[in-house]
């Protein structure tokens, strides 16, 4: 595991909002072909990190190497087109477009329409949304929206998938369903997955490696069981005493 | 924004000019000052007036002059702006110390400048103003020459009565000049016993008149008296046709008088009535000196003079007569002469009443085969009018 290939090499990433150091020199390497977790207390900079990785926010400094290329400074769609796809903490689907249209909207214009349609059908099948293909996004239940967003993130067959709190607001059955899909992607297709999650069960049971952020800095990384007993991590979560 | 810019420019102009203009005019000359729009939105009609002024001055200076004195003509540009105009007349009077002044173009600017002229007691001809209201303010020094707005529809309403129209609708743009024209139309309708079934205004820039015209139809009006400019008059006649509303008379004011009215509207413009102060038709109007004036103007400028040119030439003729009668360019004497004298110009007889109003009779024309033909007053009509207007369905088939 130590010599696992690196999918994403994050070096000294920084993002300040005025005086607030949201991400303050964060460095870690996401191993390729694995499911990794990114945890930390509220406000530790997890979502900001995701936004920096996907270009939604522009980093103040630092590097993110993906396939040997620094993707800091690229536009979100450029990063997306290089094979990095994401979901959001609170689902962001197009509420006034149908499920099918939501799916198609994430396909590149360069892909022939027929191919894109076939891919959308396949993915809807995969997340069991085929029956709802004509339904408006806004009419779906929260869990269904989550699935839709997940499926949409897979439209271009990305190599790296960033999931922002997939478990939030989702019932057990659906969550297990979703996690099955994630495992399927990793095991069958060799995808790299990075999950931000509050639900420790998800992290402990499904991630091979965990990174812990606090105040915008990585304070620990390692196997889930090691992290559980790491003193710094416990201190970050439960305060200094 | 534009206005304030012009204003500042005007100030700057006045300031820079100030130290240099302490000119003293030689005793052997009569200086005649005017500020008129050579640029801006009034430039076109005002330009024709300037043409006439230059023509007249050159003619007089080549001949005997005014009482043997040559005219020194001082021409300034008010940029079609009221405030600039006021400044320039102040300058003409206090710095250039001109002997006499002529009024600017447009009723609005004339009304504003009149106060300055009144204060300095400058007898002034106002060929550029047709709003009757200007002479209702007890002014003594501004002299009217042309028919006032209140009389623009006089002919059309007479014709309406003559062809048996009982109900008329009066519409007009919501601004000073059309309102006065409408006011006069209501008066004339009352005098001639016509019923005004609708009297409404519309905002400037109105382009869609369909609902208004439909309302006119619903009110069973037989004639439409439209106190309008070009764009609105053109839109109205066009939309009457689109709605297939058949009226007996459509009478505009200044719009139909423009050559582009008939040109742009084609056969839709046929039978429309319009008003003009004057037309360059010496054979019909038979005013003394008219033929010569038209010939000289056409020779110099390549086009026939229109009424703007006619009335401005006439106003200098009046001034010339007044100076002759007064024996000098002394303003008090000239003023007395203007108040009492009677004369005839290229556009007709001139004599003012107590309020300085001249009873100039304008003329009503009809567009027939794309040409403006004088149809009223009868004594100077070129052709008999062809009214009521034929139905739209019967048009365009010949």
């Amino acid at each position: 595991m130590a010599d696992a290939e690196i999918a994403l090499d994050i070096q000294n990433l920084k993002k300040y909002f005025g005086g607030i150091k949201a991400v303050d020199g964060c460095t870690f390497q996401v191993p390729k072909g694995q499911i990794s977790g990114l945890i930390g207390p509220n406000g530790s900079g997890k979502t900001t990190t995701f936004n920096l990785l996907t270009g939604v926010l522009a980093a103040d400094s630092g590097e993110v190497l993906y396939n040997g290329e620094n993707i800091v400074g690229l536009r979100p769609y450029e990063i997306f087109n290089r094979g990095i796809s994401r979901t959001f903490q609170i689902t962001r689907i197009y509420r006034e477009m149908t499920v099918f249209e939501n799916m198609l909207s994430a396909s590149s214009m360069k892909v022939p329409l027929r191919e894109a349609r076939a891919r959308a059908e396949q993915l809807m099948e995969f997340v069991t949304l085929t029956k709802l293909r004509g339904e408006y996004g806004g009419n779906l239940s929260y869990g269904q929206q989550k699935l839709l967003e997940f499926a949409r993130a897979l439209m271009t067959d990305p190599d790296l998938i960033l999931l922002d709190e997939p478990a939030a607001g989702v019932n057990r059955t659906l969550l297990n369903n979703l996690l099955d899909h994630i495992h399927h992607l990793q095991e069958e297709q060799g995808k790299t997955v990075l999950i931000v999650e509050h639900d420790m069960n998800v992290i402990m049971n499904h991630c091979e490696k965990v990174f812990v952020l606090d105040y915008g800095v990585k304070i620990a990384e390692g196997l889930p069981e090691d992290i559980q007993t790491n003193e710094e991590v416990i201190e970050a979560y439960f305060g200094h005493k | 924004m534009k206005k304030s810019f012009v204003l500042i420019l005007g100030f700057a102009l006045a300031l820079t000019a100030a130290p240099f203009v302490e000119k003293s005019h030689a005793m052997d000359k009569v200086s005649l000052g005017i500020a008129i729009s050579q640029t801006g939105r009034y430039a076109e009609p005002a330009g024709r007036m300037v043409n006439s002024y230059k023509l007249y001055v050159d003619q007089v200076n080549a001949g005997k002059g005014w009482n043997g004195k040559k005219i020194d003509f001082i021409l300034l540009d008010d940029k079609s702006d009221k405030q600039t105009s006021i400044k320039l007349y102040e300058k003409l009077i206090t710095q250039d110390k001109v002997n006499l002044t002529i009024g600017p173009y447009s009723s609005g600017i004339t009304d504003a400048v009149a106060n300055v002229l009144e204060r300095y007691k400058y007898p002034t001809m106002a060929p550029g103003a047709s709003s009757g209201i200007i002479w209702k303010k007890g002014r003594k020094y501004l002299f009217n020459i042309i028919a006032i707005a209140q009389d623009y529809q006089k002919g059309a309403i007479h014709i309406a009565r003559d062809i048996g129209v009982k109900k008329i609708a009066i519409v007009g743009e919501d601004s000073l000049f059309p309102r006065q024209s409408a006011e006069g139309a209501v008066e004339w309708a009352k005098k001639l016993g016509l019923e005004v079934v609708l009297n409404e205004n519309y905002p400037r820039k109105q382009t869609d008149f369909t609902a208004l015209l439909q309302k006119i139809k619903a009110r069973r009006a037989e004639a439409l008296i439209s106190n309008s400019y070009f764009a609105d008059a053109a839109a109205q006649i066009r939309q009457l046709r689109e709605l297939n509303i058949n009226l007996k008379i459509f009478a505009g004011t200044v719009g139909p008088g423009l050559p582009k009215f008939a040109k742009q509207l084609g056969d839709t413009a046929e039978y429309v009535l319009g008003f003009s102060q004057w037309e360059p038709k010496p054979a019909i109007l038979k005013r003394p000196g008219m033929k010569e004036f038209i010939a000289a103007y056409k020779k110099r400028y390549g086009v026939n003079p229109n009424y703007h040119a006619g009335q401005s030439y006439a106003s200098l003729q009046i001034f010339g007569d007044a100076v002759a009668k007064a024996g000098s360019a002394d303003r008090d004497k000239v003023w007395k002469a203007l108040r009492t004298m009677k004369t005839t110009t290229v556009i007709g007889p001139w004599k003012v009443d107590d309020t300085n109003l001249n009873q100039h009779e304008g003329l009503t024309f009809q567009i027939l085969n794309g040409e403006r033909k004088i149809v009223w007053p009868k004594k100077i009509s070129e052709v008999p009018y062809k009214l009521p207007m034929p139905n739209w369905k019967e048009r365009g088939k010949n």
Partner: protein
Amino acid sequence: MQEKAEIRSKYWLALFLVAAYTVPFGIGIYTDNVFFDLQWLADLTTVILNGIMQGGVYAMFAVGLTLIFGVMRIINVAHGELVMLGAYLTWMFFFYVGIDPLLALFLTLPIAFVIGVLIQKLLLNAVVGGPELTPLLITFGLGLTIIHIVEAIFTTDYRTIPYAPDALQISESINIGRSKIISFVMASFISISVFFFLKIHRIGKAIRATAQNADVAMVCGINIFHIYMITSGLAAALAVAGGALVSIQFGFNPETGVLYTLQAFAIIVLGGRGHYIGALIGGVMLAVIESLISFMIPNGTAMVEIASYGMMVFVLLIRPRGLMGPKEN
């Protein structure tokens, strides 16, 4: 709670609109402008039909404004100037080259699209996503510039294009101008085409996706700057098409664009900012009520503007989303 307020505002808006449409009739009866006979009903029908025809054209260019607002959250106050520019382009092709005003669309629309793209590239890209005031000022300046350029070339004279001057007789006493009908048909055709383009075509979908959430669109691989350009081009084309259809009915001069901007604003506020179908419905509704006011209220033509902007203000107060606009978040 919020749901309730939402439903209540919907009822208030409906009530307001019913009242707004009733008022002209009330005043009309009170002032003897309503006659209870067949002839008057025919006149009323004519007026309403005319309003609908007119509304169709207004709606079409209002859609352009709503598209830009929807996609970029930019209020383009130069939109009416593009309408005016369209009228002049059509006029030029008609008088100098002798091309039929409708055929000229094949030339004017591509030109308009390029103009729109240029405006986007040179002006709007720099300010999109920033404070809302900046694009407002920029487009305001752009509008003034267009007015002055057109004024310098064509003067402030009113122009008209004589086109299909006659009436189409629908019944004995209901007549509608041919040019109006032609304009309405063209406007409907163009509006519907654009609607289906947005609905079905992939680029159309990308435009809608960007309008709904530009951030998501970006992380889903949509190059939103391409979408901005296409949207601007499309909006300019709609404006210029509007200008062409206006030019065959009405006179125009460089200043008429201002009126069309205001008209388009009133329409998209009523219909719901950013909503396509809302703009179409709003356009027709606004034009019809304007016609009714002009037809039945004494001196109503002078009140039309007050009425339509009054309506805009009321809609903003009662229900800022308008008829169909998306919820503010």
